[in-house]
């Protein structure tokens, strides 16, 4: 029966083990890993549904009522309230409207505080006719201030 070398015997044979504590290093790496997992783009960069315009603006993102316009539709505070036409060039024909005011968008915004600005995040290719109608709808809901989210141009 072969004898399994004990730790003490191993240490005697190869000298004193270097007492390297890696616990704090693992802690640190775990935090970095968690941070990266939070911020990594699951779409891997290329297929992101929203491509923001770029500007030299330096104002930091602020609190407000989030309105997002992508090629799929208009999303108010996380809820899709109106679809766009298949080519993404206009609001879908079935969306109820009164002039340039989109009624579902105005109704969704009425629940929020008009003291806050409307923070608009839109795809760079969305035509202004859609943006304008969203602004008109926000105005009909009592909002007077707007902020446009952009990618900050790196100089």
């Amino acid at each position, binding site marked *: 029966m072969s004898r399994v070398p004990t730790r003490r015997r191993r240490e005697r044979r190869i000298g004193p083990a270097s007492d390297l504590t890696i*616990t704090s290093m693992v802690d640190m790496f775990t935090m970095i890993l968690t941070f*990266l997992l939070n*911020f990594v783009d699951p779409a891997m960069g290329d297929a992101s549904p929203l491509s923001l315009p770029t500007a*030299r603006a330096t*104002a930091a993102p602020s609190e407000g009522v989030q309105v997002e316009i992508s090629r799929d539709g208009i999303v108010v505070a996380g809820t899709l309230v109106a679809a766009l036409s298949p080519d993404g060039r206009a609001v879908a024909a079935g969306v109820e409207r009164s002039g340039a005011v989109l009624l579902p968008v105005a109704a969704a915004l009425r629940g929020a505080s008009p003291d806050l600005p409307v923070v608009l995040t839109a795809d760079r290719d969305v035509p202004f006719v859609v943006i304008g109608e969203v602004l008109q709808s926000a105005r009909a809901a009592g909002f007077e*201030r707007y902020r446009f989210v952009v990618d900050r141009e790196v100089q």
Partner: protein
Amino acid sequence: MPVVASVDLTAVLSVIVHLIPMLLLLVRFRQIAELDASATVIPALPAPGAVALADQADRVVSVRITAEGFLVGGTGAGEPFVPRAGEAYDYAGLRLALAQAKELHPQERRVVIVPAGDVPYEVLVDVMDAARSRPVGDGREAELFPVPLVAAPTGGGG
């Protein structure tokens, strides 16, 4: 005698060390900012092509965005046209025209922006950005019109 349990974390560390470079390759860091358009939408202003803005072109600083270029009001010379330079809009020309308007209206900080319905959102943002300031050398910027008023369409559909 107390027994010290020693967990070997080397394997965990090895996995993490491999994961971090992989995630760093995938991650896309973005700097998000906001452009303030705190002024109200002006429903009374008609879409481009109508006459209301042209009538008061020298009193109101305005930029009308069309598919062909910019019409800049408030320069004291009617509404000078800044045509597109090939595929791209001429933002340097726009800044120049707005600088003329600034000389005429030094106290004015607002600019009315009237985009045509088919103008992409990106162009509106670029115009707002160009109208805020212009470079004057040595990394300095001279203020132009940092308060944009976006004129939204008044009619239906588009």
